[in-house]
């Protein structure tokens, strides 16, 4: 009888952000679909009411089905049967429930059977599903692949494949190979065009999440004799061809319910998506950005689960005659956990808003010529989405790991045992800072926001000038000081004009910007709802100390010191 949406006020809070009106109006094209589809919203209030109701159903399914199944799914795991994946029984039940509720393909256009939900409620759904079972969210969340099909495939492909996703078929994105992990330019899987123009795929893919999904997006080398990213194209493989074998499922530390497959393609018929040679350069980038936002949501959902388990245990567990939550060592840990959770969730939905507006405007600009104002607005949000997505993925996944670590710590010895969910949560959390680009690679993407001054511009021109209540002014003063120090550090590092030196301090600079941004987001949350003032206060204290520490380190490790860190 649990409901993971209605028991979490933070989700509803972010659903009512002032920018939602603009987002919903864009997404619903001023509510013109209400005459074509009986489930389309009539106006803004009606749309938000629908989002709320959809999330309530997801919350119920997650509370009553997905979360109770998580333990058995973790123990049982998926298996390879005759070259295909057989999910754990609980996974199958979860999928059945979500299919019956029509919760697959939820962002897709209505004409393809989707719900046309905005990125915000979709991400909230991912946040909720992740809290229930971090492994299962991968299978469910791969419906994101359909967004890439929707964006780049032709009309016929959209009609054929998107309707299937909406009806509940699952997806996979087949990128990684044994020798092409972080460096996808090295992809070898061979795409051969036959005389009749059709394509077949041959080769091996590795570490493919839900690799036996019904519809797979496959990155393959279509251009003979090439060896870099420009020789790669994107293909759709349909499982009904039965030409891809699952050779094995990896044995993993966490997210065990999510089958990570090694795939063998043998003359597998496939369809080209979009234009040749744009596979990596354009389509994978779109796919990855969506996936990174998804991991951001997964990180926040798992953090939520970790925090709740820790809080409940700390209230319940008594030692030395009192509940352990009464000890400073424990309550401080919990308060920091909650502050990080609130901060990363705020960053998640801020990023979603940028992505949502930019993506929707991009789609509109394919249908009609945008006005110059619209074009500027789109560019503005695209730039923000590009730097906030890796910032979010990096920060939220690291927090997720920290929260899972602390949640076990609060449980003490019991947390180390399989008797409590934190043991699984801790294992599940570990992957978030690795896949879809490690934290280190997120820094490589996000550092542009530092060096171009884009983070600073957003901080100074948007966050710093927002109107706030007098009692929040002190927080802002602290953040203003932190911003000055950040600016000083950025200037110091970039003045050296050495790319290795910049790489060396890049993570620190990105995290300093992240701390300031999340601090401001929590102030703005507190402005809208006093409830968040506590988290804002705790987070900013923590962020201030963290940034000072980083500043000191940056000042003390100069270019000439890099040699010390190198081992042969």
């Amino acid at each position, binding site marked *: *009888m649990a409901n993971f949406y209605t028991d979490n006020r933070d989700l509803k809070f972010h659903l009512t952000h002032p920018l939602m009106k603009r987002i919903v109006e864009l997404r619903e094209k001023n509510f013109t679909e209400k005459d074509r589809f*009986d*489930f*389309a*919203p*009539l106006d803004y*209030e*009606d749309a938000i*009411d*629908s989002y709320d*109701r*959809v999330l309530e*159903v997801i919350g*119920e*399914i997650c509370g009553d089905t997905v979360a109770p199944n998580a333990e058995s799914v973790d123990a049982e795991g998926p298996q390879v049967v005759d070259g295909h994946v057989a999910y754990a029984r609980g996974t199958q039940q979860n999928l059945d*429930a979500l299919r*019956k*509720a*029509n*919760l697959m393909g*939820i962002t897709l256009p209505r004409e393809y059977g989707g*719900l046309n939900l905005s990125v915000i409620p979709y991400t909230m759904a991912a946040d909720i599903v992740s809290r229930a079972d971090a492994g299962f969210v991968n299978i469910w969340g791969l419906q994101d692949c359909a967004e890439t099909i929707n964006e780049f495939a032709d009309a016929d492909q959209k009609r054929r494949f998107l309707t299937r996703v909406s009806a509940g078929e699952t997806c996979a994105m087949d990128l990684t190979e044994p020798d092409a992990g972080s460096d996808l330019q090295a992809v070898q899987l061979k795409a051969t065009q036959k005389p009749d123009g059709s394509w077949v795929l041959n080769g091996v893919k590795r570490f493919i999440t839900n690799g036996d999904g019904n519809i797979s997006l496959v990155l393959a080398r279509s251009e003979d004799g090439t060896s870099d990213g420009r020789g790669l194209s994107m293909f759709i493989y349909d499982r009904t061809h039965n030409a891809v074998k699952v050779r094995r499922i990896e044995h993993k530390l966490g997210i065990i319910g999510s089958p990570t497959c090694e795939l063998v393609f043998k003359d597998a018929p496939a369809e080209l998506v979009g234009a040749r040679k744009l596979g990596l350069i354009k389509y994978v980038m779109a796919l990855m950005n969506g996936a990174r936002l998804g991991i951001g949501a997964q990180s926040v959902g798992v953090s939520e689960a970790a925090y709740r388990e820790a809080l409940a245990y700390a209230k319940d567990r008594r030692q030395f005659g009192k509940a352990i939550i009464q000890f400073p060592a424990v309550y401080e840990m919990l308060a920091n956990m909650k502050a990080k959770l609130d901060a990363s969730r705020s960053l998640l939905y801020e990023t979603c808003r940028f992505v949502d507006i930019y993506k929707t405007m991009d789609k509109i600009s394919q249908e009609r010529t945008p006005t110059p104002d619209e074009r500027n607005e789109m560019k503005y949000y695209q730039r923000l989405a590009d730097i906030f997505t890796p910032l979010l993925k990096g920060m939220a996944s690291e927090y997720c790991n920290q929260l899972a670590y602390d949640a076990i710590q609060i449980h003490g010895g019991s947390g180390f045992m399989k008797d409590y969910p934190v043991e699984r949560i801790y294992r599940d959390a570990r992957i978030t800072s690795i896949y879809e680009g490690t934290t280190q690679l997120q820094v490589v993407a996000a550092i542009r926001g530092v060096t171009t001054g884009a983070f600073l511009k957003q901080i100074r021109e948007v966050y710093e000038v927002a109107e706030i209540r007098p009692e929040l002014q002190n927080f802002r003063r602290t953040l203003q000081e932190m911003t000055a120090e950040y600016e000083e550090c950025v200037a110091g590092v970039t003045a050296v004009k050495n790319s290795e030196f910049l790489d060396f301090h890049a993570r620190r600079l990105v995290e300093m910007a992240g701390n300031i941004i999340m601090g401001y987001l929590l102030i703005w949350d507190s402005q809208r709802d006093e409830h968040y003032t506590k988290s804002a206060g705790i987070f900013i204290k923590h962020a201030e100390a963290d940034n000072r520490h980083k500043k000191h380190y940056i000042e003390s490790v100069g270019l000439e010191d890099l040699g010390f860190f190198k081992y042969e």
Partner: protein
Amino acid sequence: MNGLKIIVLAKQVPDTRNVGKDAMKEDGTVNRAALPAIFNPEDLNALELALRIKDFHPGSTVALLTMGPARAADIIREGLFRGADNGYLLSDRAFAGSDTLATSYALSCAIRAIGEFDLIVCGRQAIDGDTAQVGPQVAEKLGIPQITYAEEVLKIEKSKIRVKRRLERGVEVVEGPLPLLVTVNGSAPDCRPRNVKLMMKYKHAKTVSETQNAAEDYMALFNERPYLNITEMGVKDIDAKTEDLGLSGSPTKVKKIENVVFQAKESKRLTASDFDIQGLMVELIANHTLG
């Protein structure tokens, strides 16, 4: 067999499964205000059974019939969100205070007013009264056969229905001629979740009283989209003798209510043998203390 007309009888009940301190009033009656109103659980099993028949026999329709106060329209909406085609709310002050006899009389009159049907499905019993009388009484009043404790419909063909019944010591497969009434056991499959598309489609569905009472922004919708109108029936809409309805039609009188506090009296002595422990485990599993 194609196209069955199915009516599901459903009741809105106080959620007695999570009872707190204030669940009962001083006088021993249920404090309905303190308990959330929910779809009676076994009526949800009944709805699922009906929806499965609809899945297998395209062209079938599932209508919900519920008797209760105005807010019982929630039950109809919950049914629409899960796949029911339409619903009837039987609501009138004249029905207040009905016991099972008056309830089944009112329901049977409403069913006659609705018209033809092939199958009536309802939960075995409601969690507030636990009588299990209303279903069988409705069947008697309509003069049709009944199958109780149903768990699964195995087959419907040539106007016959074959049903698996769950009994205390096993299962029984029986067959009966349509039209017929089935009461469904809690062991039948759970009801499917709400379908969000149907939910968005039907969320504005309302009875006439609801549209009159609410400050409604979407009034035009009820003309444009006829499916959003939930049929509301009162005494005037059914052909019923008023003396057989409500309190006057209810011979059941509550004489006294006692608060029973369980006190364990029995004790059992076990030895530390595997045999005794095994016996205890079997017993605890059998009476559902474990598992």
